[in-house]
């Protein structure tokens, strides 16, 4: 709880103070609330508000449309090579959204790769509200996929089987038993998708300006991007953003919050997926098609650009080069040290948020401590905050003369910001897994003399471990490529991968940026594969 307050509540408080007191950053408290009239007068506010809301709802719904069937297919049936699909759908998280957006631009815009190959020009689709929703969904839908499939894998099919035994048709059993069981996970996944879309900056920044779509994050960034910097205005907009995100959270609680579904009763279940039979081929084809769209196409675009000598050279053998990759290793180790920094920070963030998320979820869901609503909200809040707000909040908080030691201006501030930003993931995944545990499991352990901690360690943890692992992998993936807070908080002299790539783009070296993105994607993937392999060997049985 103390950590949670340090990580989340304090930076938030400082943003709020900045929003209320325009001169707060200078340490003065005059002119309270003077930023509010300016906010209400801003002509762009309604457009930003509705733009954000429309896109976020679109992304949440579309993510459910894609993620639910895929997650059900993965969770209920014996898909060929199940691990492969999980891995495939983790990749969108390894790709920074702005790079995905840029990759899509290189593919779809006029004279892009698609047009060079097939003559098809989808420029107008890409630069539209639909285009933004599509690109964002392809990045975000895996949260629903993972929430749904993990929940199905954890709960098994016992109850649906019972229904089948009593004469229900497969559809009926699915509709009346499985779907309701899924609803907390689905709602949690959609909420995450919604909040992710609300706080997303890269995609709307890359595609939105050209299609006249504005979102709050872009507005906030704009206030911080040109002189004079409007810190109070940016803080104000952040508060609006937080309100939207809290609205989504409230709605989700309203719909599913108090429904606890018991599906893991403690009796050992062996997960046997139902046979797919004759539909196996189409199901696999659909999954492969989605995977191709979400992963392979942008990845290819990235790699092609990384291997192209010049962009204006287009797709041709003569334009093929490895010079961008060679340059990565040549820049006096800059690129490699950035890679090292990012990967170790991501690993640390995954471990810390995993443990912290476990504690928070356990206290909220199982111990039902007082003030759990506040704790739940606190642990979700960062998901609604754009990175840049957390960044500014952390500077406001930590760069004060009164702290005896401060993480500011060291790599630790990056770690703190990642933990703060990504904490919602483990909390959501673990608590939705915990909600499915039978209410008598933990008490049973306690009756038999286990301490609360022992019960957690030996009963609860093994049961929710798959969800926790999935969440930690996601934290790792996202932290390894986080851009916005890194840009603001990286101490002088330290670079992360995303910052490195961003700088390359800024300086017009698209090829080099894409080469680095490709290298990072492959390294991250290899590391995650290794980690998965080791952990699964360790937890067999």
């Amino acid at each position, binding site marked *: 709880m103390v950590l949670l307050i340090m990580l989340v509540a304090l930076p938030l408080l400082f943003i709020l103070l900045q929003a209320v007191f325009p001169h707060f950053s200078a340490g003065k408290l005059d002119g309270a609330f003077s930023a509010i009239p300016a906010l209400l007068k801003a002509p762009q506010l309604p457009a930003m508000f509705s733009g954000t809301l429309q896109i976020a709802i679109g992304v949440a719904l579309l993510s459910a449309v894609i993620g639910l069937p895929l997650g059900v297919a993965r969770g209920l049936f014996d898909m060929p090579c199940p691990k492969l699909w999980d891995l495939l759908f983790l990749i969108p998280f390894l790709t920074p959204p702005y790079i995905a957006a840029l990759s899509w631009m290189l593919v779809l815009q006029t004279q892009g790769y698609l047009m060079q190959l097939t003559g098809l020009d989808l420029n107008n689709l890409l630069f539209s509200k639909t285009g933004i929703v599509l690109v964002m969904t392809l990045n975000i839908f895996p949260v629903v996929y993972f929430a749904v499939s993990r929940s199905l894998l954890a709960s098994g099919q016992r109850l649906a089987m019972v229904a089948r035994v009593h004469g229900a048709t497969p559809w009926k059993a699915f509709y009346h038993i499985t779907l309701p069981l899924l609803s907390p996970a689905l709602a949690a996944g959609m909420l995450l998708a919604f909040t992710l879309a609300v706080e997303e900056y890269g995609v709307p920044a890359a595609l939105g300006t050209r299609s006249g779509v504005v979102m709050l994050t872009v507005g906030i960034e704009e206030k911080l991007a040109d002189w004079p910097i409007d810190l109070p205005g940016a803080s104000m907009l952040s508060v609006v953003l937080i309100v939207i995100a809290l609205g989504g959270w409230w709605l989700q609680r309203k719909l599913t919050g108090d429904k606890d579904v018991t599906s893991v009763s403690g009796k050992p279940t062996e997960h046997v997926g139902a046979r797919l039979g004759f539909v196996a081929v189409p199901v696999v084809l659909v999954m492969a098609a989605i995977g191709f769209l979400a992963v392979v196409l942008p990845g290819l675009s990235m790699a092609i650009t990384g291997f192209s000598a010049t962009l204006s050279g*287009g797709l041709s053998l003569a334009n093929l080069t490895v010079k961008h990759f060679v340059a990565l290793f040549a820049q006096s180790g800059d690129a490699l040290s950035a890679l090292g920094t990012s990967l170790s920070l991501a690993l640390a963030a995954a471990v810390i948020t995993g443990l912290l998320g476990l504690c928070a979820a356990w206290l909220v869901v199982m111990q039902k401590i007082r003030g759990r609503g506040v704790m739940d909200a606190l642990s979700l809040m960062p998901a609604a905050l754009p990175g840049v707000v957390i960044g500014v909040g952390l500077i406001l908080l930590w760069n004060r003369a009164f702290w005896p030691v401060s993480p500011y201006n*060291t790599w630790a501030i990056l770690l703190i910001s990642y933990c703060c930003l990504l904490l919602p993931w483990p909390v959501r995944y673990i608590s939705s897994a915990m909600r499915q545990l039978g209410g008598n499991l933990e008490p049973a352990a306690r009756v038999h003399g286990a301490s609360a901690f022992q019960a957690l360690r030996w009963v609860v943890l093994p049961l929710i471990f798959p969800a926790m692992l999935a969440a930690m992998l996601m934290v790792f993936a996202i932290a390894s490529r986080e851009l916005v807070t890194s840009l603001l908080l990286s101490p*002088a002299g330290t670079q992360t991968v995303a910052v490195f790539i961003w700088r390359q783009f800024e300086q017009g070296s698209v090829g080099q940026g894409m080469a680095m993105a490709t290298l990072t994607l492959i390294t991250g993937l290899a590391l995650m594969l290794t980690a998965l392999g080791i952990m699964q060997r360790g937890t067999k049985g």
Partner: protein
Amino acid sequence: MKALLSVKKGVALAMVLSSMMMSSAHALTVYTAGPGSLAKSLASGFEQKTGVKVNIFQATTGKVMARLEAEQANPQADILISASWDTAEDLHNRGWLLPFHSANADKVPDTLKSADFIAQGISALGIVWNTQSGTPEPKEWQDLTSADFKDKVTTPDPALSGASLDLLIGLQNGMGDKAWQLFDALKQNGMVVSGPNAQAVTPVMQGAKAAVFGAVDYVTYGNIAQGESLKVIFPASGTVIAPRPMMILKTTQHADDAKAFVDYVLSPEGQKMVADAWLMPARTDVQAKRPLFTELKVLPTQSGGTSERGDVLKRFNSLFAK
């Protein structure tokens, strides 16, 4: 139990942190917008010469200024190099800057220096044109309104790029209301506003668009050196230049090192590095690899403070909003 765990973690964290804090003391901290490779070579050159370590925070002007602003309570930067002259004037008015006259400043023209800030280098805005786009080479801003360039022009977002906003102001100062007719005609011809500078140039490289209306030149010169089929064109009717102010902050704990760094950047050696980054050097006696601003017609961008900037931006935004 939980509380105990958090305390332990907190203590461990604090110990790690304090050990790191000590090692990072005693170095010069430079916040800089613009080419990272330039910042790095300047830093390592200075380090070799004086033995003083230089930590660089490099980002866009907006990010640098946001960080500076948020750090007001406990400033970290010793030196600031911005890409926008305005920021220096504003900080000067706030009294944040340390007056300093470098011995090497004598070779810098008077318009590019003041009592407490001085140009590091200069970039200019021009038309960036893809030579393989099948369009006739544009010579003037107006050429981009012709039918050849229908739906083929992009421009950086002046809300995100101070230099781009300078161009709007310069054109307004030079052409009066005709400037707004020009912007209107560009809009009619399908010009789109993209993010910051690089985002406007990338579609032109790939051929999605044929030209950028008002891009920062040095990035494109770098691209051309890499083999991209681009050309930078400065219209004879005039364009604007963007000098990059360099300044020492009053709050610095290392004033002498900071002054030595400014001296070094303005030395022939430092200015050569500036020129190698495809910028115009601030000193008139250092060779550049590209046209100098003395060869361009420069439009005045001096304006009566931030309100006019805001008005121009607002008018431009409402023109391109729908």
